[in-house]
């Protein structure tokens, strides 16, 4: 549940929506960082 809350905080902070399907893979700072970089590159 803490992971879901963290994803919601990231959504708040970065103004994006994170699919629940992606949450299971985001289990480290590095993975989250890379995920965000990719999302912003795509955007």
């Amino acid at each position, binding site marked *: 549940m803490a992971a*879901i809350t963290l994803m919601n905080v990231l959504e708040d902070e970065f103004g994006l929506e994170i699919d629940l399907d992606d949450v299971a893979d985001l289990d480290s700072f590095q993975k989250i960082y890379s995920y965000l970089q990719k999302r912003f590159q795509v955007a």
Partner: protein
Amino acid sequence: MTITEALRLTHDLSCDAQPFAVTLACGFTPLHLQTFLAAHLQQALTNRTVTISSGLYGNLIGTLESIAGTVLPDGLVVALEWSDLDPRMDYRSAGGWGANADSDIVSCARAMLDRIASTLVRISPGFRVALSLPTLSLPPLFHTPGWRASELELRLEADVLCFAADIAQDGRIVVINMQRLGEESPVAGRFDLKSHLYTGSPYTIEHADRLASQLARALAPPVPKKGIISDLDDTLWSGIVGEVGPDAVSWDLTRHSQLHGLYQRLLSSLAEHGTLIAVSSKNDATVVAKAFERRDLLLRPDQIFPAEVHWNSKSGSVARILKVWNIGADSVIFVDDSPVELAEVASAHPGIECILFPKNNYAAGLAMLRHLRDRCGTEWVSKDAALRLESIRQGAIFREQAAGGAAPEAFLEQLDAVVTFDFALDGEPRILELVNKTNQFNLNGKRYTESDWHRLVSAPGAVLASISYEDRFGPLGTIAVVEGQINGTQFEAETWVLSCRAFARRIEHQTLKILFETIGASYIDFNFAPTAKNGPLREFFATLLGEEPKSEFRLTRSQFEARCPALCHAVRKIKRAEDHGRNQPTVDQLFPDSFPGPATRRNLDWIDCNAWSLGFRGSYYTHERPGG
């Protein structure tokens, strides 16, 4: 509120604050609801540290049954959903929705509602419960197309409403208004199926925020405003009475001034439930008096006091009204159609809430009516509420007569004043209401939740007295509360409040006299703390101590008796605990040394004890006249 803001609110807390522990009972993963509930409660209870624990997933009734009858935390929140009534209504369940299941689901839901209701009523007294009815749409399980309500669906909804109506009779259980929730959180935006299936948390973030806000308000409601001061022209009625005349101002449908009529109806309703209503108008008083003679007024003239009608400034009028009411500007709403008048009053009376009457904006008018009800509405109807305005009106006459001529003693002697001490009303909501809203004569300004208060007054050795008063000007109702701990012949006063309506009658002196005499104490310790508003209490103690107290202090009986003025009240009866249908400590247990009677004398009957020697033994209502 965003999740980030909610988390920040709940993390930036003082370690010293007293905890406020809440149990959240729900059958789903509480997730966002829990986060937002903690944040909204933290906003309402700034001097507490809110903690929330939740029950087991999928077992709301189990959570409730596990806490019923036990010592509860400070509050309980129940977020009911359809899936709690029957698992077949849960999208995560594999239960069938066939023809045979429909009626069975309704039957099972009804049985579960009965079980929840019987569990909730077993929750210990003194604890507040906030409950939301199902907020999500029913799954498409009934045979009718979605645009048509099936009979079973309607029966299911009716069962839920009957359940809510039944449990709402218990004043401790607050059912949130689902229509209001619908305005703040549209039904279509509440459910997140993917989140529900993946995590067991069915609410969207927005819905969790809105629902948590309502539940927090139900658990920790804001203090209602005490009075409304209203303008007349283009506010209480449509038109300028000095220009068109008393017969031409209107508040009806035919002249398209119904909004003013609705405003009058709301004020009248609020007045009936204890909100003070006054008028401040720049007008010719004789013309206004004529207008108030009209029989079609929806706000009766006797519901208004005082009326400040003249050409002087409105800030001055408001000052005089506040003085008559004897309350602070922050307890009052001022309504006027003129932004200039609102600004003038706001600058002179910081804290007053100023509302512009929206003459031709019907949507804003409706919002204003609802806002006034929200700010002034009462949670229960108290018999004291009906007395409030009349007692203030009589209080003004009282002060005039007290100031005019006769010596204070002579005037007070003529009052036929009766002070009633009642030691057996700890569950009466008026008592806690009085403690929490009294500012000026308040020992320390402490505010209590229902659970705090319940713990305090049910502790071993706790003494609680509510005090009511009446004289030839009429009854004031319950106007004071004293609470403290007794230890042998020592008394430590933790709470003492006296309504400002009851000042100048020496009730505070009589209270101390009764406490000293009853307990047989040589001193009383007062858990005093200065506040920005408790000057009247400090001034009272300065007359006994020689100077205003700065912190906790002790008052000796000799100090009190040396400076206590003559008291002219009849001290009347203590109701026996049995009269209120509850078990209280016996009077012998509380005041063992103060009774001349046999040890079997029961139940807080110490005034009766005084009367006992005068031959009034056995009466419920006993009198002790000074020197009688």
